[in-house]
Structures are given as C-alpha cells and as structure tokens.
C-alpha cells in the first residue's frame, strides 16, 4: 500500500471523474433515505399556505453554483405554481438578474403561468442587507420597474403586494451571505417566514438560524433539493444526480481511510 503515498494526485482526479460519470450512464438508483426535517418543513409550510399567496423568491446565487442551487429553486417554484401561488422574483446578486429570467420564464412556460399575473421578475438591486430591508418596507421604492423596465403599476401581481414583509413566505436560493441577511432582517425584524436552498458549504453556518427558528426550513445543497423533488413527486436534476453523489462520497471516504492507514503505518514509532 505504500505506493499510495507517492501516487500522482491526477489518478485521484480520474477516479473521482469516473465515480461521477459512470453512475450517470448506468444509474444505480441508490435510495435517498429519510427526508431531513429542515427540508420537510418547507414542503409542509407551502402545503398549508392559503390559496393565491404571494411568495417573495430571491435568486441570490452566481452562475458558478447553478448546479447546486438551481434544482432546489426550480423544485420549490414548481411546487408553488402547482399549488396556485404567485411568485415575485428579486435578486441581490448581479448574476441573479439574468438567472431569474432564465429559470422563471422556462418554468412558467412549462406550467402555463402568465407574466405579470402569476409571477413577476424585478431584477437586481444593489446594496445587500440594506437593500433587503428597503424591499421589506417598500417594493416600489426599491424597484421602480421590473427587470425589463416595465412600470410596476402595469403588473397586476404587484397591485396589492407592495411590501416584502407582506409576503406569505420568503425563499432565497443563495450561495452568499444574502441567506444570513434574509434571516437577520426579513425573519428577525419583520417576522417573514424565511426558507431557502443554499450551497452545502454554507449549511453548517446557517443551521444555528434553523435551530433558533429564524430560518423556517433549508434545502442543503443538491441533497436537500433531491429530498424536495422526492416529496413533491417531481423527480428532476437533483434526483438524477444523487447516484453520482453517493458513489463519489463512497470513493472519498475510502480514500480518506486508506490515506490515514498509510500515514499511520509510515509514522515513526515512539520509543
């Protein structure tokens, strides 16, 4: 086993690539296991929302993490549309202005929803948490027009929805500190039920907010998104990716164990 200590790391890259690629060609259908409580809470909350609720939907992720955050955002938005709720999309991240249009317009086309009535896209707002507070206080003051420059008065969905704090729920798909800001400002100060999907890297930092109730529920990366797809019986990208994720994790765990064995077997013994 000593060859492992001098193994070229590029062989490990090949191994990881194969462990991700092969299950995509030959699906193993690895069971997902029990749905985690933070994912389930989002589903149950949406199921209990009064009909025709307006949900504030934040596209707060960069294009680089689309693979991780977008399946969850799609799954929740689709669930909301199918339950007859309406969506107002905003973004506090530059990339989100474009991403929100791509995702929402495609989804609305699939679900037969009409722009301005069932959903609206307001685009990007600079200013991070201060901008978020302003949206809570007044949407027209924060977004004078929608993403394409159309005045808000022309959008029926926004006639009675003037403040972010009046949203039945806020959902953010985030790979930045914006998720914290939703918890800190929208949830703690204004009492808006905050939910979202985040990259897995961020999840340990967000769990204290889940524990304190400031975040109602959270989809932890691709795994959380797959759980949501399972609950809504709408298998999508995340579900298809879980085989590859499971095999890659197995390979990683095996490599960690092997490298520890090699390390301890080569360590000079104490006398």
């Amino acid at each position, binding site marked *: 086993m000593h060859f492992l200590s001098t193994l070229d790391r*590029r062989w490990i*890259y090949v191994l*990881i*690539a194969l462990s*991700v*690629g092969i299950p*995509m*060609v030959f699906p193993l259908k690895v069971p997902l296991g029990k749905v985690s409580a933070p994912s389930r809470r989002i589903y149950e909350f949406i199921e209990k929302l009064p009909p025709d609720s307006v949900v504030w939907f934040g596209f707060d992720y960069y294009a*680089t*993490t*689309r*693979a*991780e955050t977008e399946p969850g955002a799609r799954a929740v938005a689709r669930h909301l549309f199918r339950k007859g709720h309406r969506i107002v999309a905003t973004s506090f991240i*530059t*990339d989100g*202005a*474009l991403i929100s249009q791509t995702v929402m317009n495609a989804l609305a086309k699939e679900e037969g929803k009409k722009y301005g009535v069932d959903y609206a896209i307001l*685009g*990007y*707002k*600079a200013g991070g*948490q*201060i901008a978020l*507070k302003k949206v809570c206080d007044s949407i027209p003051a924060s*977004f*004078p*027009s929608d*993403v394409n*420059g159309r005045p808000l008065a022309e959008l029926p969905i926004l006639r009675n929805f003037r403040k972010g704090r009046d949203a039945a729920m806020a959902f953010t798909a985030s790979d930045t500190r914006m998720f914290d800001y939703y*918890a*800190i*400002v929208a*949830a*703690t*100060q204004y009492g808006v039920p905050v939910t979202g999907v985040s*990259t*897995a*890297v961020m*999840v*340990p930092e967000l769990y*204290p907010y889940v*524990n*304190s*109730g*400031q975040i109602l529920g959270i989809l*932890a*990366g*691709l*795994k959380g998104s797959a759980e949501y797809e399972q609950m809504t019986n709408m298998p999508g*990208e995340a579900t*298809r*990716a879980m085989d*590859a*994720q499971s095999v*890659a*994790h197995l390979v*990683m765990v095996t490599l960690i164990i092997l490298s520890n064995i090699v390390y301890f077997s080569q360590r000079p013994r104490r006398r």
Partner: protein
Amino acid sequence: MEFTVPTLIGIWVAAFLTLCIFSFLYHDNPLYKFAEHLFVGVSAGYWMSTYYWQSIRRDMVDKIAEGDWISIVPGILGVLLILRLFPKIGWISRWPLAFLVGISAGFNIVYTMQAQILKQIDATILPLWSGPFWNGAMGAATWSDAMVNWIIVLGVFCALIYFYFSVEHRGPFFGVGSRIGIYILMISFGASFGYTVMARVSLLIGRMLFFKNEFWPAVQRTFGMG
C-alpha cells in the same frame, strides 16, 4: 431540447471552455489561461452592464429625469469614491467611505445584537428534563429531545470556555471544559468539511450532467446522428 443555431453554438462554446478549465487538473496550460481570462473579462462586462441598467439607470438616471433630484446624492458619493485614483485629491474619497462605514456599522450593530446574539442565546435556553413532573415550557417533549438539548447547552458552554482566555485552561472546570470544547469544534469542522466535499462534487456533477444532457444531444444534432 430545442436546438437553434445560437443554442448549438452556445453549447459547443460552453463545452470547450469547460474542458479548458478542467485541463488545469493535468497542469497549467495556455487553454486554461485563455478560459480564465475570458471568464474574468466576460464577468466584468456583464457586471458593468447589469450595474448600469439595473442600478445606475433605474435608481438614479430615470429618477432624476422624473424630477427626483435627491437621487443624485448617491451618484455624487460614487464619483467622490473614484477620486481615489487621483493622488492629489484622493483624500476626498474618505468622505463617501466614512459614510459607507457609518451606515454599515450602525446597521450591523442593531441587527447583529438582535439576530445573532439575543436570538441565539434564546435558542440555547432549553428544557433539559422530561417526564410528568416537568410540564409546559419547563420540560422537553420527550427524553430524546431533552438529550439533544443537553448536547446543545453543554456544547455551547464548553465551546465558550475554550474561547475564554483570561484563565489558564487547567483543572476540572476550565481544563475539562475547554477540552470538550475542542472536541465540539472538531466535530463542527468535520461537518463543514463533509458539506464542502458534497458541494464540490455537486459542481462536478453539474458539469457532467451538462455534457450528458446538453452537449451529447448537441453533438448528435450537429453531425446529424440519431
């Protein structure tokens, strides 16, 4: 998937650039450098355009055109900030910077206290016992809930002891407490590492799915296969 000519070109370019970036795993090379520089350039261009149309135009230019002259103030502060580039009058940029620092500090002090200190302390004051004697808010719903609460309370307490540096970490209270605190921190680092692995693998899966679901059908369409 509907393949128009622009879509096909886009998919081919995306696949080429993905491979350029992956080529760095073998070693540094001009293709990787090309993709890296292109990414930086395109990002800068996209950000500039978005900032202009979604922020400067919508929040300042249009509002001024409507007669809302107060909207010019952020614009002036922004221009003052850029004066840093001119050494002789660069000192003026400290004014808008002071404004930014003041606003951020004032905003964060209030919210940090409220959301990250008081709420978090509140979340660690938990019922530690269960059973018929401990009813209502005093007791946990089940013994397993009570056990979880013990872990949270002791975990927070021991982690705080570890970060208390005014007393030497020795003896049954500070010594043992800080030792447990280290273990608690190690467990949290382990969880973070696990989640980081999951995140990175997810990104790789995203690219692989792109090759399988978009690029391969685009190849078939381009060469008239299937």
